[in-house]
Structure formats: C-alpha cells, structure tokens
C-alpha cells in the first residue's frame, strides 16, 4: 500500500517535471518569437525559423528507426535509485558546460545569442523535442538529465544573462 502510493507519487512528480520542462521550453520559444518580432520582417526569416523548428524531427525519426526497442517498462524504483545520482550529476554538469560554452561563443564572436535568433530556436527545439521523445519512448534518466540541463542553461542564459 505504502510502496504503491510512493510509486504513484513519484510517477506524478515525474509528470509535473515533464510539464514544467515542456512549459519552460514553450516560454523560451514565445520569448524568442517576441524578441525577434521586430527583426522578422521578411519572408526569409519566417522560413529560417520554420526550418530551425523542423530540424530535429527527421533526425528523431531516424533514431527511432534504429533504436526501436523499448526501455520504458523499466520505470521501477530500483532503476530510479540506480540512476538518480549519475542523472543529477549529468544535469548539473550539462548546465555548467552549456552556459560556459554559450558565454565563450558570445565572447569569441562578440555577438549576443539574441542576435542569432535562429541558433537559439534551433537549440530550443532540438532539446525539447529530444526531451519529449526520450520521455515518451525510452525514459532514459541519464539522457533526461543532459537534455534538461541544456534546456535549463538556455533558459537561464536568455532570461538572466542577456541585458
């Protein structure tokens, strides 16, 4: 009874986490669209944004094609306990690395990420669709950590480090 309740609660937490992560990504997307609203004047920019949003989809289909086996049924407590620590470490490490990387690139090119909106859209759409894909089909917690890390780094960078 207790374990059952425990599992259902964990399941629910994971779902909330899923919705929050997706929500953050959607907010970033809307923010990027509004940020670029003045710049999106020509037909060309619209094409570029559509391209960067569509970019991950064929790749994910290809990955799914190759790795068709399911890992999903393994969503047990054991599996979670085993993967908790590496997944958390990966999350933190990815956030730090991704933020450093963005800072370095901005420093090297002397350009803000906001000026290269297409790149921001590309990172956002690739990581969020991989996240949803991984969550729905594989539930690999380590991959979850990395992808959440990239999304968080992008969100932190856009909301706090861009004056």
């Amino acid at each position, binding site marked *: 009874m207790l374990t059952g309740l425990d599992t259902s609660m964990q399941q629910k937490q994971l779902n909330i986490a899923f919705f929050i992560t997706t929500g953050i990504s959607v907010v970033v997307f809307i923010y990027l669209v509004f940020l670029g609203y003045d710049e999106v004047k020509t037909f060309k920019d619209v094409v*570029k944004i559509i391209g960067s949003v569509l*970019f991950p989809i*064929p790749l994910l289909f290809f990955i799914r*094609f*190759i790795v068709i086996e399911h890992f999903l049924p393994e969503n047990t407590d054991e599996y979670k306990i085993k993967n908790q620590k590496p997944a958390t470490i990966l999350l933190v490490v990815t956030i730090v690395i991704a933020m450093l990387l963005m800072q370095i690139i901005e420093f090297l090119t002397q350009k803000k990420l906001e000026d290269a909106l*297409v790149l921001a859209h*590309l990172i956002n759409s690739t990581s969020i669709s991989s996240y949803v894909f991984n969550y729905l089909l594989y539930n690999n917690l380590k991959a979850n950590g990395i992808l959440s890390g990239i999304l968080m780094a992008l969100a932190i960078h856009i909301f706090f480090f861009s004056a």
Partner: protein
Amino acid sequence: MNVIKTPKNQTNSGKRELLFTFQTIIVTALLAFTAIAFFFYNQLTVVKGIKVIFAPFLSVVPLLFVLSILRDLRKGFIEGNYTKKQILRFALLTVGITAAFTAITFLLSKINALEILLAGIIAILSTVFFLRSKIKDILGMSIVTGIAEGIIVYMIFLF
C-alpha cells in the same frame, strides 16, 4: 506520437515501415515548401508556359517505368536491432547525404525559371518515391533522412 504507437503494427518491422512512410511524407512536404519558398523569394518567372506542364513527365515517366519492371531490391525491414558497425556506417551515410543535399538545394536556389525548378524538385521527389517503394531498408531510411536534413540545413544557414 499516438500514430506511431498504433496497435495494428506492433512488430518492429511494422513500426519501422511506418516511420519510413512518415519520413517520406516529411520530405515531400519539405520539397513542396522549398518550391514555394524559392518561387516567392526569388520571384521566379515562367519563361515558357508549356514547359510547366511537361516538367513533371521528365522524371515521373521513368519512375513509373522503373517501378513497374523492377523487383524489390531489399527484403524489407529487419525485426531485431542493428549492430554498432551498421549504425555508424548509416549515420555517416546520412551525414554525407545531408551535405550533398545542402549543396543540391543551393544549386536549386540558383535556378531562375519556374519550370526548371519544378523539374528538379519532381526529380528529387521521384527518387524519394523510388526509395520508398523499392529500397525498404535502413539504406533507404538514411538517404531519405539525409535529404530532409540537407534541405533544412540549407534553409537555416544559407538561405
């Protein structure tokens, strides 16, 4: 996502076939999108109207001929997993095709008459349908993925 998990095709090869079909649909949509984008952005003109009508026949007729006489070149999708070596090889092939199609899309963007653009796009489309119906294998899938990614990469970075 629900469509991918339809209970009808629960075998792995069935799922793979479905994914392959989706990929070809995506490529078809992307090609149509490319044609429209180039048409509006480059302000193409129709040089000779009659050519627009005949442009598709250039590649559709050979395609139909080849499809009608050729047997299936591949046995279909496998049920089990691919080996690491195969995955690496086909991933590299996909990257190669992506680069090639970025270049081909660039060439398409240089065309300044609608009828030639249409002929080119329909030739690529025919190739895709040929792959779809005769090369039902990871080979076909990686080529189709490469075409899709090549078009998208061109649209993002070079357009």
